[in-house]
């Protein structure tokens, strides 16, 4: 009697609080039509002409097959749970992120700024003033005026070429990018050292260094430095998560990173360079014999389960019609 009482309790037990918010994860389908699962692949069909003996045999086969399928599905599930890939690139972040793109657009924009941090509008104003002054100081002779004008025009062209961002050094570009990153990430005006700003500046640094690594494959030192910067960014963002999770998730979205990239371990290994195609589609890690066997096995398992799924769908349609 007591046993029956406890058994009754075990079914459909609800939370003590928060009962209204509960929603079942899988939509409940009426009993006549069960949800489609892989186990339908094991279904053995019988008709009126099958003998008793045959039916028994088929039932036994179905049971056996179902067991096998359950085991295989679980093995693959466990394998996938253990080997989860990074959701985004742990170094460069999501490629859809606009953070770096916006900064590069600003640097290249000649109407906004020239190199060495010179403002374009100020530049135009100053040159106009200089031209006017030199004309006013000269005599009122028309030919002299024209010659001075042409000289000033040449000067302006020369300065524009010198100050064009295409002709400036990489260091100058990096400095401008840092400035813009600080402006983009700061909480209030004059903020230069909050975790968000540090993470933003590190991201720009990593971007420029990674461009270098892509070009020069043999430069190991820079690659190591990039790894250090990535770790630095990880640690400062971990700290930010502790003090203010809201700001943390905002920064992640801004820089195109994700939570798992910050929490999980990262090494600038050859495996990483191969996986994220830093140097194109090139094999860098040699597959060992044992790994090859293992990978082939996993692939074969995956193919088998796919075939089970197809078969299950066919059987399901035979039993209950199309969904």
């Amino acid at each position, binding site marked *: 009697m007591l046993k029956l009482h*406890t*058994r009754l*309790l*075990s079914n*459909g*037990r*609800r*939370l*003590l*609080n*928060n009962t209204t*918010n*509960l*929603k*079942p*994860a*899988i939509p409940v389908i009426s009993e006549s039509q069960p949800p489609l699962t892989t186990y339908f692949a094991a279904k053995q069909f019988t008709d009126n002409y099958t003998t008793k003996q045959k039916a028994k045999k088929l039932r036994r086969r179905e049971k056996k097959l179902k067991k096998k399928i359950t085991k295989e599905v679980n093995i693959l599930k466990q394998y996938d*749970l253990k080997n989860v890939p990074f959701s985004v690139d742990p170094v460069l972040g999501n490629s859809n992120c*606009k953070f770096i793109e*916006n900064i590069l*657009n600003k640097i290249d*924009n000649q*109407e*906004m700024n020239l190199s060495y941090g010179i*403002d*374009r*509008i*100020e530049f*135009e*104003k*100053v040159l*106009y*003033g200089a031209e*006017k002054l030199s*004309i006013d100081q000269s005599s*009122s002779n*028309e030919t002299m*005026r024209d010659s001075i004008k042409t000289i000033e025009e040449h000067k302006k062209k020369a300065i524009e070429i010198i100050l064009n961002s295409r002709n400036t050094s990489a260091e100058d570009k990096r400095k401008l990018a840092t400035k813009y990153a600080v402006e983009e990430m700061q909480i209030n005006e004059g903020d230069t050292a909050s975790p968000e700003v540090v993470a933003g500046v590190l991201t720009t640094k990593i971007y420029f260094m990674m461009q270098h690594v892509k070009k020069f494959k043999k430069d190991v030192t820079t690659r190591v430095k990039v790894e250090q910067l990535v770790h630095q960014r990880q640690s400062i963002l971990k700290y930010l998560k502790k003090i203010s*999770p*809201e700001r*943390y*998730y*905002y920064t*992640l*979205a*801004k820089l195109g990173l994700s*939570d798992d990239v910050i929490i999980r371990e990262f090494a600038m290994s050859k495996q990483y360079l191969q996986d994220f195609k830093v140097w194109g589609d090139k094999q860098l890690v040699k597959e060992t014999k044992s790994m090859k066997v293992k990978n082939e096995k996993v692939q074969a398992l995956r193919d088998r389960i796919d075939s089970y799924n197809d078969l299950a769908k066919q059987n399901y349609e035979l039993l209950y019609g199309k969904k």
Partner: protein
Amino acid sequence: MARQNFVGLVVSQGKMSKTVKVRISNKVYDNRIDKEIVKRKDYLVHDEGNVCKEGDIVRIESIPKISKRKYFAIAEFKQNKGQQFAQYEDLAKSRIKEEQQLFLESFKNHKMEFNKIITQISDMKKLDELSYKLRNGINDDSVNDEVLINEINDIKAKYNINSWPTTESTLELEVNKPVYTNEEEKRVFFMDFILEQLNNEKFQQYKSNILGGNVDKKKNIQKNLMRTWILNVNNELPFKLPE
């Protein structure tokens, strides 16, 4: 009898349906090392409705055994940190979309402002040229003096200029703007000058009044004390600051 109760942290979620792993830690006294150590145990806990997220702190309660390893169910949320995190993630995405649009708008605005300045400069150049022609009587046969005067007046009206050439500034440079906007910023800007003045023999008395009993202290301490005094705007300086 009350059911068995624990408070623990959700460490894994989403791997099994309607099941989470909850970590319970408690302190146990170890006789061999004579101190308390933390012991952990992980339970599989029933979560009807899949509401838990990693990072939540929950109270769990024992129930009749459901399966081989499952004999607890979630009773209450103590802290729903994990669920909050998921909320923040969604919030951030929408916020960044808005910011991207603002960025594009500011880009456009800057372009417009730049074009405005360029047209103003070209107009000024034209004004210079026309007024030069008028003054020196250099004129083509086809154009009258009146036409020139009208053109000059149009440009003058456009930029609110009374006479040309003027002594007033028509294009404001950023270099000419003052570095400070209020008294405090001004004092910060002229800090070296003020300290130098106060260290003169002229203001010996004044300095000793500021420092009070701290006259014999070290030079750097004296400087810091004077700095704090100067940065208080209510204290009047005995001399005028340069413009």
